[in-house]
């Protein structure tokens, strides 16, 4: 319970008067958080903006960099490629997610729970890891095309150029649509559908006029998330050797031409603008459409059983989709045990050598990942608890700004934050002359900033659910604010805090966009970076796959453990209240 202790220490100085006025302790806490966010989020991003909008050398305001951007064929092409890939990924991800969501929420379907769980799996594997596995299965000389060539004498360019990025990204990110859409569908009260039937509607008309519009907000939320994630992703296109997209261009400019070249920064600004635009558009589309219609005593969407024909079709579709989206996992597993796997549908022989190699020389990656991801998770929950407490339980002026700043990280692509860190902290040197930007702790902070919005939302929701009367009762019985926080608030928030920590931990463990910029030496590198390095050479693919399997297992075990923990605390609380 380290994080609880830290959070408690930071709130200990809260005065015991009612929340009418902010106490000194609260102000100090808020100031500390504000400084942290200003220093590690606002400042680096502002630096990126500054460089993009000023003349190199003089520092005078200029738009010339953007004009250069628009005049350079490569950049314009990269922009449209990124746009095309993102849009097509949304389309393809929808093709995977729609049937799964629809079948599992609307029919009494054996294995619906299993499908929803399996649907999560792609998320826990870094997409660039999947990319390698996908090459082996669907590439020009991958298993499928070899078989196709053998049997029918033709090949399908699944993985050629942008196709590959689209396929890999949509397989990786479709769970966002599945999760949001399923939640929306489940939130439609069955009376919504029944009243339509009662007034004479049925079948596809009923779906089109009532069910689909009501599920729209969930779909939009998922789709916009997919769009933004794909637009910002760096590692997948790089690994598939697709360089003419925006994020790879930003990375390549900064790493190959140098951190003084303004084009990387201009691209970063474009990435930010596109993220904000996509989120803003989806927010506009969803405005006033909070359609959670489940009523007191109402059931979710109407479920019915399928006839024999429908059952066969449904199982066929579900199996096909699951096979496809789980293919990278299977291929990765095979690859991690394969001696040689090329130009053949399956590996030639199997070995454990890759694992022993990974646990031997590459163990440092695993160790670093644990260290970085846990520290990042810890920072996130401490900040998350503190910010939600300040926002929900105090009248501190400007407290919403803390919330806003912390959430703004959502709109900052990882590669942009990485570039910002490099630029902002490269000039700052430590006592031994090492630039601040290259110290491993900066990787931790970048990861923490990137994941803060998610942890914050988890803590915020947890605190919001605690009735303030519980705290008032404790104060009424003689506990001061600090003791109330420690004895009542934090224990009740445990579920949310754990959820926040695990989300941060498990996503930070496989994050690459920001770290790719910041890792300076192999000894400081986390798992995702190691994977990336391994996967670039054919000889490294075996160990790379072994490392990938370890990453998947790591994240899966953590998610599962947190799920169990949260269930258990909820059950325990349910029993006492």
């Amino acid at each position, binding site marked *: 319970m380290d994080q609880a202790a830290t959070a408690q220490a930071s709130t200990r100085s809260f005065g015991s008067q009612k929340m009418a006025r902010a106490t000194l302790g609260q102000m100090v806490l808020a100031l500390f958080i504000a400084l942290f966010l200003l220093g590690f989020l606002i400042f680096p991003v502002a630096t990126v903006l500054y460089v993009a909008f000023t003349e190199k050398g003089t520092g005078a305001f200029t738009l010339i960099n953007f004009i250069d951007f628009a005049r350079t064929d490569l950049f314009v092409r990269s922009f449209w490629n990124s746009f095309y890939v993102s849009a097509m990924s949304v389309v393809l991800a929808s093709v995977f997610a729609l049937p799964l969501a629809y079948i599992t929420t609307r029919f009494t379907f054996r294995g619906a729970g299993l499908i929803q769980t399996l649907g999560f799996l792609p998320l826990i594997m870094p997409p660039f890891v999947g990319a390698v596995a996908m090459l082996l299965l669907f590439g020009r000389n991958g298993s499928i095309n070899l078989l196709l060539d053998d049997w029918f004498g033709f090949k399908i360019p699944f993985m050629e150029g942008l196709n590959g990025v689209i396929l890999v990204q949509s397989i990786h990110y479709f769970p966002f649509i599945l999760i949001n859409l399923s939640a929306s569908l489940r939130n439609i009260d069955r009376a919504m559908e029944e009243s339509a*039937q009662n007034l004479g*509607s*049925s079948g596809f008309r009923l779906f089109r006029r009532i069910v689909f519009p009501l599920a729209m907000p969930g779909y939009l939320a998922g789709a916009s998330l997919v769009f933004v994630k794909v637009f910002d992703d760096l590692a997948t296109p790089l690994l598939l050797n697709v360089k003419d997209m925006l994020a790879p261009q930003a990375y390549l400019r900064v790493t190959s031409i140098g951190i003084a070249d303004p084009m990387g920064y201009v691209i970063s600004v474009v990435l930010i603008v596109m993220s904000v635009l996509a989120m803003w558009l989806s927010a506009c589309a969803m405005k006033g459409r909070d359609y959670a*219609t489940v009523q007191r005593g109402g059931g979710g969407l109407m479920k019915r059983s399928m006839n024999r024909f429908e059952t066969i079709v449904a199982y066929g579709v579900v199996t096909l989709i699951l096979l496809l989206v789980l293919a990278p996992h299977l291929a990765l597993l095979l690859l991690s045990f394969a001696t040689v796997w090329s130009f053949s549908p399956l590996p030639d022989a199997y070995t454990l050598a890759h694992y022993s190699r990974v646990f031997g020389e590459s163990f440092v990656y695993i160790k670093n990942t644990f260290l970085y991801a846990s520290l990042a998770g810890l920072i996130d929950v401490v900040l998350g608890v503190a910010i939600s407490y300040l926002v929900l339980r105090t009248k501190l002026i400007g407290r919403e700004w803390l919330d806003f700043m912390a959430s703004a990280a959502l709109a900052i692509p990882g590669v942009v934050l990485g570039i910002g860190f490099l630029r902002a902290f490269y000039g700052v040197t430590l006592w031994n002359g090492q630039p601040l930007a290259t110290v491993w702790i900066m990787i931790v902070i970048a990861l923490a900033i990137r994941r803060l919005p998610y942890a914050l939302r988890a803590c915020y929701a947890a605190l919001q659910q605690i009735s303030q009367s519980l705290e008032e009762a404790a104060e009424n019985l003689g506990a001061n604010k600090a003791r109330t926080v420690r004895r009542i608030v934090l224990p009740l928030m445990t579920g949310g805090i754990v959820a926040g920590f695990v989300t941060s931990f498990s996503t930070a463990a496989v994050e690459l966009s920001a770290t790719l910029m910041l890792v300076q030496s192999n000894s400081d590198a986390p798992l995702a970076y190691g994977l990336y390095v391994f996967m670039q050479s054919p000889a490294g693919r075996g160990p790379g796959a072994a490392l990938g399997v370890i990453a998947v297992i790591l994240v899966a075990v953590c998610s599962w453990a947190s799920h169990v923990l949260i269930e258990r605390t909820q059950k325990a609380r349910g029993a006492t209240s």
Partner: protein
Amino acid sequence: MTSLHHAVSHAHASNLEISDVHVSYGQNAVLKNVNLSIKPGEFFAFLGPSGCGKTTLLRLIAGFNQANRGSIKVGGKDISALPPWRRDVGMVFQSYALWPHLNVARNVAFGLEERGVPKAEITKRVQAALDLVGLSDYAQRLPSQLSGGQQQRVALARTIVIEPKILLLDEPLSNLDAKMRVEVRRELRDLQQRLGVTTIFVTHDQEEANAICDRMAVMNEGIIQQVGTPRELYERPANLFVANFLGHANVLRGAMGESGHDRSFTLRGGERLMIREGAHIPDDARLVLRPQAFSLARGTANGSWTGTVQDVEFLGAIIRYRVSLNQDDILVDASFRPGDEVYAPGEQVSVSFDSSSAVWLSQ
């Protein structure tokens, strides 16, 4: 008013025949041997405690539940095999179930659009229906921008605009506050009278049912206990459940006795009631008397029972006494007018009643 009326009125109302309906969920029988006959244009209520199967029966009529056996006929035609969207049985849901993505006008137009009614006529009929419920100014609002009472009216307008053969209302007033409930109840009754549509109204509140319906069916544990007008059921309950569910009933146990020609009923405490000759009363019957059947007088009187006032509740128009007889306690309601004498706890009173208001029930 006549044109509006015409736009949504029902040329001829339909009757509803439910015969021998059984519904069970697994082992759990929810409706048992239900037989009902509802007349054209009647305002009919299903009344019973929660969980007794009212909603199940209503949903069965609308086609959302399947009966294990039995038939449902509307206007002489068996609709049991029809899916909900072919039944022409309009249902107003307890939660209203207004679609949040459609405005009021489009909610109301939905059923007409599904029936392929021409656009111009839809506009006219939607307007008329909204006028009828007094919401024509709200046509462009979203449901979330309406109060509970307004939402309820939209739900009603949405259903009556399709001119259903039967109108089903599932606890339509339960989401309103107490004052609104009485108001809307009157409006509902008024509207039903004007439209003349056969209507079934589900409620667990006996006062609501009494006030609004022509006839009602009292249900308990999936069985229809009694069917009749509110007054019939109140005055002549068929069994103890009905007697107790419709207002308070004093149920007195005793023994039937015979001395010479006279039959008499003796309470456990010895109080005795002579029984008219020829009255057919089973031996195990209990005496059921409404609180207002009794009258009290100070002191004791010949031929009356004697009791002691235990406590007094002043309820405004009536005063409710709890009076203990030798063995039994009874509730007595006396109407109160300002200046009337009120008995105090501990006072001895004589208790008399009109034996024609006595009801004998053996179960």
